[in-house]
């Protein structure tokens, strides 16, 4: 008899169908993995289960009884606890205070000592090893996640929903995390976890549900399946062969990264001895699941983040000590950042200002510090025309444009600077098919001009369309390299999940 049943859940946002008749049934005391690529609808489904979204149709049952979830507090009342990908804790408060927060709506006294004792006992019984009296800011990220888990357990959750739980963990924390999850399961908790990492599914889950484009494509017992089948189910097709015909052979090495090491903002290892090289007139695709060091790699090359160790050179010039401005101006590194809204553009500025965002302090845009508005207007008109940026005028606020047009602004600006090296990070995220094709054709044009392009994406299909070579990144290092024609869903999936490390054969 299933403990938790989702029956025919659909969720539409306008015309977009995020979930399409999703059925799911989970036994008590088991771990269910929800596997799928970005945008498969996993997170939407979890938000339905947590009362954040109301399904357009379908029903939810716990222990055979239908339940209605209007808000997270309804979910909590039914014993559903959600552990978000990004922990939500007040850092200046202690662990116990964060856990107790919101439990009691009155003004009454808190006996924090009593709560702390109960929390300590609970923490010990599940092997979570948390000291309730510590202030949260003193804890590393992995422990903060355990605080979140304790928080839902303390509220009496029987069903734990974890959204990409390992994405905030350092590699060495992951094994312990899996171990703790097993303890929870063995104590009778029901666990659903959302992931796109095959190795974790194999290591932890009893059952796995694979989702693709808002639908459930498979339900199976982990014991009866294997990573190859799962990765094929997840990606859903063999990836298309490269379409573009190259007009010119790749030249000398233009970008060389040697043994890059970097810790991210949270202090965990983001780049772990990564090395790559890209030749001029070549597109190197970096494939990998989100959060394996792609963002840090791009920012390291472009000078937005400092390396702990390693060396980056462009055409034999060591640029490791260059500032972001020098890398752009002297080393001629162009960058299409992943965070289009916060980094690549100033959304409140007009289109014209964004088209000169990286060049407005130099001639011909500025002379002796004075802006040449005629030049800016000419540049803007020219680029808007050539890159098909659709807007009322160059003075229009960038915020009003569609994602595709915004990305064209970034692309136009970076390509027109005539870079030797172009780093393109998650450039197709949130774009429609037309815009994606436009981005890709411009990149191929740029490659044929002789630029070395590093194309970072989580979308295998997109990488296959443009890349000449593909390197797979996993936990901050390159785990394998292959050619687009060797690319199959299984092989890429395995490399991306770290299930095997292989060289291109």
């Amino acid at each position: 008899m299933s403990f938790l049943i989702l029956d025919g859940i659909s969720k539409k946002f306008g015309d977009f169908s995020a979930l399409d008749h999703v059925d799911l049934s989970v036994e008590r005391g088991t771990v269910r993995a929800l596997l799928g690529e970005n945008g498969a609808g996993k997170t939407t489904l979890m938000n339905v289960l947590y009362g954040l979204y109301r399904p357009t149709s379908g029903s939810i049952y716990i222990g055979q009884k239908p339940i209605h979830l209007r808000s997270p507090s309804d979910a909590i009342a039914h014993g559903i606890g959600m552990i978000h990908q990004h922990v939500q804790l007040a850092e200046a408060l202690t662990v116990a205070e964060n856990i107790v927060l919101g439990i009691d709506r009155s003004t009454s006294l808190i006996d924090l000592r009593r709560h702390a004792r109960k929390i300590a006992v609970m923490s010990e019984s599940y092997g979570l090893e948390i000291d309730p009296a510590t202030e949260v800011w003193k804890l590393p990220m992995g422990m903060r996640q355990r605080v979140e888990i304790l928080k839902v357990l303390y509220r009496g959750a029987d069903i734990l929903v974890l959204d990409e739980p390992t994405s905030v963990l350092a590699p060495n924390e992951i094994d312990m995390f899996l171990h703790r999850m097993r303890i929870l399961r063995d104590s009778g908790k029901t666990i659903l976890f959302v992931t796109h990492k095959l190795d974790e599914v194999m290591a932890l889950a009893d059952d796995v549900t694979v989702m693709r484009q808002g639908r459930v494509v498979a339900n199976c017992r982990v014991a009866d399946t294997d990573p190859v089948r799962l990765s094929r189910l997840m990606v859903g097709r063999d990836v298309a062969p490269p379409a573009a015909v190259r007009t010119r052979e790749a030249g000398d090495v233009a970008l060389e990264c040697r043994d890059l090491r970097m810790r991210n903002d949270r202090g965990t290892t983001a780049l772990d001895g990564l090395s790559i090289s890209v030749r001029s007139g070549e597109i190197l695709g970096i494939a990998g699941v989100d959060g394996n060091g792609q963002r840090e790699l791009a920012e390291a090359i472009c000078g937005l983040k400092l390396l702990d160790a390693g060396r980056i050179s462009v055409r034999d010039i060591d640029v490791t000590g260059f500032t972001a401005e020098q890398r752009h101006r002297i080393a001629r590194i162009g960058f299409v950042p992943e965070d289009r809204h916060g980094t690549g553009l100033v959304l409140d500025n007009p289109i014209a200002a964004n088209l000169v965002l990286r060049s407005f302090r130099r001639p011909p845009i500025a002379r002796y510090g004075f802006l040449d508005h005629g030049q800016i207007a000419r540049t803007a008109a020219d680029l808007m025309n050539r890159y098909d940026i659709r807007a009322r005028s160059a003075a229009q606020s960038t915020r009003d444009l569609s994602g595709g047009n915004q990305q064209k602004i970034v692309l136009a600006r970076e390509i027109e600077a005539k870079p030797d090296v172009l780093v393109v990070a998650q450039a197709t995220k949130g774009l429609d098919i037309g815009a994606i094709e436009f981005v890709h054709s411009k990149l191929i044009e740029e490659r044929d001009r002789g630029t070395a392009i590093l194309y970072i994406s989580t979308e295998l299909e997109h990488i296959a369309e443009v890349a000449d070579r593909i390197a797979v990144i996993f936990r901050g290092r390159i785990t394998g390299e292959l050619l687009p024609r060797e690319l199959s869903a299984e092989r890429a999936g395995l490399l991306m999940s770290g299930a095997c490390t292989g060289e291109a054969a």
Partner: protein
Amino acid sequence: MDALLDTGAIALLLAATVRLAVPVGFAALGGVIAERSGVYNVGLEGMILLGALGAAAGTLATGSPIAGCVVGVALGVAGGLLLGLLSITFHVNQLVAGIAINLLSAGLTAFLARGLIASLFGSSSVAGFSQVRLPGLAELPVIGSALFTQDPLAYALMVLTVLVAFVVYRTHAGLRLRAAGENPRAADSAGVNVTQVRFTALAMSGAFAALGGCHLVLSQIYMFSEGMSAGKGFIALAAVILGRWHPVGAVAAALFFGLCEALQLRLQFSNPNVPYQIFLILPYAASLLVLVWFFGRSRQPAAAGQVYERESR
């Protein structure tokens, strides 16, 4: 300098310290509550004035200073709620909203005092509180007469300081308050109504600042005069910083400000050659040094000054 050091003079100095510190102390408590919830209350100055006017009008109308306090506190609460309406509901910059409330209060109280108090009540001087000697405690050497021969509002401050500290650190309501100021998103996801918490905090903040104004009218001057807050609301903001956002710390800082003020007054008359401004600058310089040295260990509430919107990314 001998005159400064004899015990009688010290007792007088301490008594003056307490008297000068009470209005700032009340306002500082109000500041702590507001900032703990995540809102800067730059409008404390105006709320002191509202409290002072209410105290004068209420006392003149009823003859009872307690009723005066009730009216004063009610006006202060109104000021706090207005700050909430502006900064929480309309997303007006908290600093601008506070300054606007200061201007509005200064103008409105002066206008009402001239127009209404004079015409309605004829007289403007009010019967306030008198000093109450606490038997036993007042006999303590030096500090006894300074601390325990005070008016009821000064005693109220002592009690309320402890009470506020208790509520902030030992109750569920206090926990919600601190969480709203530290990480409103986390508080929200734990089921705390951040908007409600902040409105409540601002109402209380206004009430406390108003009590400071009540003290000015009912225990010090015995009448309302225009602009009688004289910057005490801003000093209270500094006291909040020096007290490191802790209720007891803020009131202790207010006492320190009071002591410095008392010292400089004394110095101005007894030793004109010593620059008394040293004592005026001292508390602000101390606040600044506290910021520079303790930053990171004793931060301001992390979300202070920020609008919290559920839908914001």
